[in-house]
C-alpha cells in the first residue's frame, strides 16, 4: 500500500497521520499541495487542520489547490481517498462526497472523546471492525455538523453509505450522543463506489494506549488488508 498525505498550508494533523501509519508499521509520504500528481499512490489522505486558515469557509479554498484536480482524477479512477476532519470538509467542498459540514449546533469548538457506531463494516476502510461495533475516537472541530437534504439522506441511508454514527456510550444514536447536531448523527460517509471516505472523528489520535486508546487502529488495519 503506497500512501500519500497531502499537506495544505494550514494543515495540522498531517504529521499525526504519518506517525499513526508508522505505529501501524507502514511508512507514508507527505505530498505538498502544489504538486500536481498523485500517480503511484494507492491511498491519498486529506488530513485535519485549518487549510488556508479555514477562511471563507472550511475546505473552500483548499479544493482549488494545485494538487486537487489529480486527487479528483485519482478518485474517479477508483483510487482510495480518505478525508479526516478538515479533509472531510474538503471532500464535500470539491464534490467527491455529498452534503456539507456546518457550524456545530452548540456554536462551540469541541475537542472530546466520542463514541461511534460502525454502521457499515463492508468497506475497505472498516472491514476490521465488527458490524455495529462501538469505537471511541476523539472529535475535534468547530464545523462538524453534517447536513444533507432529505433526498440525499435517503440515498445515503438506502445505499448503506453512512459508515459511522455518533452514539451515546450505550450505543444509541440519540440526541444525547450527538455532539454537533449532525443529521441522523452522521459522523462519516463513503462514496457510492466505496473508495472515498470522509469522517469528522480522528482515528489517527486513537492508535496508542498512552494517548487515549486504540479504537482507531481498525481503520488502518482495514486499509492494510
Amino acid at each position: 500500500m503506497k500512501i500519500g498525505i497531502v499537506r495544505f498550508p494550514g494543515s495540522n494533523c498531517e504529521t499525526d497521520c504519518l506517525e499513526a501509519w508508522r505505529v501501524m508499521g507502514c511508512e507514508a509520504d507527505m505530498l505538498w499541495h502544489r504538486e500536481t500528481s498523485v500517480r503511484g499512490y494507492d491511498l491519498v489522505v486529506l488530513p485535519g487542520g485549518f487549510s488556508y486558515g479555514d477562511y471563507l469557509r472550511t475546505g473552500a479554498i483548499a479544493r482549488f489547490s494545485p494538487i486537487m484536480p489529480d486527487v479528483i482524477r485519482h478518485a474517479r479512477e477508483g483510487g482510495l481517498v480518505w478525508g479526516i476532519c478538515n479533509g472531510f470538509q474538503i471532500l464535500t467542498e470539491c464534490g467527491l462526497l455529498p452534503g456539507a459540514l456546518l457550524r456545530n449546533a452548540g456554536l462551540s469548538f469541541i475537542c472530546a472523546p466520542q463514541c461511534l457506531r460502525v454502521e457499515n463494516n463492508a468497506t475497505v476502510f472498516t472491514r476490521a471492525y465488527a458490524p455495529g461495533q462501538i469505537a471511541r475516537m476523539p472529535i475535534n472541530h468547530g464545523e462538524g455538523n453534517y447536513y444533507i437534504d432529505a433526498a440525499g439522506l435517503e440515498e445515503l441511508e438506502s445505499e448503506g453509505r453512512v459508515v459511522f454514527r455518533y452514539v451515546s456510550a450505550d450505543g444509541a444514536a440519540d440526541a444525547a450522543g450527538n455532539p454537533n447536531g449532525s443529521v441522523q448523527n452522521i459522523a462519516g460517509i463513503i462514496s457510492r463506489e466505496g473508495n472515498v471516505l470522509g469522517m469528522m472523528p480522528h482515528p489517527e489520535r486513537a492508535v496508542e494506549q498512552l494517548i487515549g486508546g486504540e479504537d482507531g487502529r481498525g481503520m488502518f488495519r482495514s486499509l492494510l488488508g
Partner: protein
Amino acid sequence: MEAQVWREMGLSDEEYAAITARLGREPNYLEVGIFAVMWSEHCSYKTSKPVLRRFPTTGPRVLQGPGENAGILDIGDGLAVAFKMESHNHPSAIEPYQGAATGVGGILRDIFTMGARPVAVLDALRFGPLTEESNKLLFRGVVQGIGGYGNSIGIPTVGGDVYFDAAFSGNPLVNAMAVGLLRHADIATGAARGAGNPVMIVGARTGRDGIHGATFASVELTEESESRRSAVQVGDPFMEKLLMEACLELIQAGVLVGIQDMGAAGLTCSSAEMAGRGGSGIEMNLDLVPRRETGMTPYEIMLSESQERMLVVPKTGCEARVEEVLTRWDLEATTIGRVTDDGLLRLTEQGRVVAEIPVAALTDEAPVYDRPAAQPAYIAELRAADLSGLRLRLSPEETLLALLRNPTVAAKSWVYRQYDHQVGTNTAALPGGDAAVLRVRGAGKGLALTTDCNCRLAYMDPYYGGAWAVAEAAQNIVCTGARPIGITDCLNFGNPEHPEVFWQFTEACAGVTAACLAFDTPVTGGNVSFYNETPERAIYPAPMIGMVGLLENIGKICPNVFTSAGQDVFLLGETEGLLAGSEYASMFEGLVAGALPPLDLAALRARLEFILTANERGLLAAAHDITEGGLAVALTEMAAATGVRVDLPAGSAVLPSLFGEGPGRFILAATAGAERELAALAAEREQPLRRAGETGGEELIVTAGGAPCFALPRARCRAAYENALGDIMLA
C-alpha cells in the same frame, strides 16, 4: 518640543532630560517615540529589574537563562525544552478574543524564535465572578480567542488554571505559556552580529494596528481604555503557522545569525534588542518595509505591533535562500537594512536620516528605579484574624456540593473542550489532572507542565503566596511522577509606583526565590505585568508560575485519579488543613484572613522526594494533592471511575479535615500488593503516611474513627463538579 508630547508618550520630565543629555541634543518626535517604548515598564523592566536579579537562574540543565526570548533546559539525549510565559492582560480587558488570541500568538513566536518547535500551550486565567455578565463576556471571549488561535495553528492547549475573584473584575489576567522542543544544535538566539550582514523583515506586512501597545500596557485601566482599542492587535493564526514552519526551516538550515519576533513595540524593540545583544548597530531604510497601508509615517512603522512578523539577520549571501523558503510558504522576506559596527540604531527615509540613537541608550542604559516599598496596613489586620471559632454552616454534604459548584473549584471541561488538546498526538495526560504530560516522541520521556498561583494567599501574605505558587506547581508536577526542573513566571501586580504594591512585588519575588532554591528549579525567564488596576481596585498580587517537569520514563506516568476499585488509599501529610485563605472561608464566611504559618520548604521537598521515589519503584496507582476546597473536593476529583471510602483518625475536627487546605497534603493509592512497601518507605523517610481506606462502591464516604463525617453518591458529586461551569456559561 512641548513637554506634553513626551508626557503623553509616557516619559517623565527627568527621563526626557536624561535622553537629551545622552544624545547631546534634543531628540526629534520619532526618537522620543522610540525612547518612550524602549523605556516603558513593559520593555525596560525599569522597576522590576533590581528585584528580578535575585532569582536563581543557573543550574546544570540551564542552556539559556533569562534575557532571551525564552529559557531553555537540557532534558538529555541532546534534546532541550524551551518555555516562557507572558501576559496579555490589558488587551484582553478591552477586546477579549483578539487580546487572548494574540497573547497565544506572541508567546508561540518566542518559542520558535529560539529554534524550538512549539508542542504545547497553557493558560493561567483570572476573572471576576461569573455572577457579573461583563466577567462572563470576558471569560467566554478569552477562551474562544485562545482556542481560535491555538486550534488553528495546531499546537495543543494542554493545561492551565482558572480562578474567579472580585479582585479581577474589569482587569482579567490572561497569561499564556508556551513550550517547545529542540535539539541542542538548533538553538537560535536574537542577536544581530557581523557588520554588513543583512537585516530582513519576514512574514506579515506592517500596518497601523497595535501602535502603542507597550505604553498602553504600562498604565492603569480607566474608562478611557475603551478608546485605546486601536492598541489591541489582530491575530492571524494561519499566517503564523506558515511563519513558524518557514522560520524553523531557516534555523535548521543554518543560514541565520540571529532571529527575533516582533511583539511589543514591533520593529523598534526587535531591532534595538538584537543590536544590543550582539553589541552591534543596525541601520534600516524604512522605505523598504512592506506595508499593508499607504501613508504610514516613520513613527507608525517603527511603533506598529502588527502580528506575525519576524526580524532576521541571515549570513551575507543567504538572502536568496531566505526569500526562497519564505516564498514557498507564501510569505514575504524583504531586506530592509544591515548590521553595522557603530553601535547606533540609524533609520532613514527617502535618503534622510530620521533617527540616530545609540543602541545602548535604549537597552542597557534604560533607567532603573529603586522604588520605595511599604507593607500595607491590611496585612497585619488580616493576619490577626482569629478563625478558630469557624463552624460549618451547612451539613458536610451540602458544603461539598456547594464547593464543587463554585467555578474556581469546579471542573474546567467547559474550557478545555474548546481547545484542541491532542493535536500532535503526544498528550499523555489530558487537561483536568494535576499537570499535563506530553510524550517526547522517540525519547521515551515525558514533560509535565502546569501553571499555578493562589492569588488569595498572595494577597494575604505575598511572600507565602510567591513561595506557595512554586510549591503548588511542584506538587502538581510530582503527582504525575515527574521531577520539577525549572520555571518561568508571569508576575502580575498593580501600580508599582504605590509603595504597597511594590512591597507586594518584592515580597512575592522573595518567596519565589526561596522556593526555587528549595526545589532546584531555576527561573529561566518570564514577564512582569504591572499597572493591573481599575479605578475601583488593584488586583490581588498574582505571581503566576509555569513549571516544567521531566519524566525520564513516560511509562511511569502516575494517574491523578483512582483507576479501579480495590485500591488501598493513603493520606499523606497533616489530617487537618488550614482555614486561613481557604476556598471555604472565602465562600461561606466571606473571609480572606488569618495567619499563614511559615512554609517549611525543606520538609515539603522531602515529601515530594518520597512521592517520586514511591512512584519510581512502582508503588503508586494514583497521586493527587489536596488544595482548593480541601480533602472532600480532592476525593471527588479522584473519583472519576469508582467510589472511595476514607477513615480519618478518631476525633478529627470535621471542618479543617474535610475543607481545610495547606501545603504537603496528598491522597495516594497503592498498586496492588505494594501497600507494605509503601508504608515501609514512608517510615524510612519519616513521612506522615496513613492507610485510610480503599476505592470501590459508588459512594464517597468519609468517617473519623468509624464515626460518619459524610457520605454522598459519587454520581451526584461528579455531576455537580463536571457540569457547574458549563451550566453557568450556558445560562
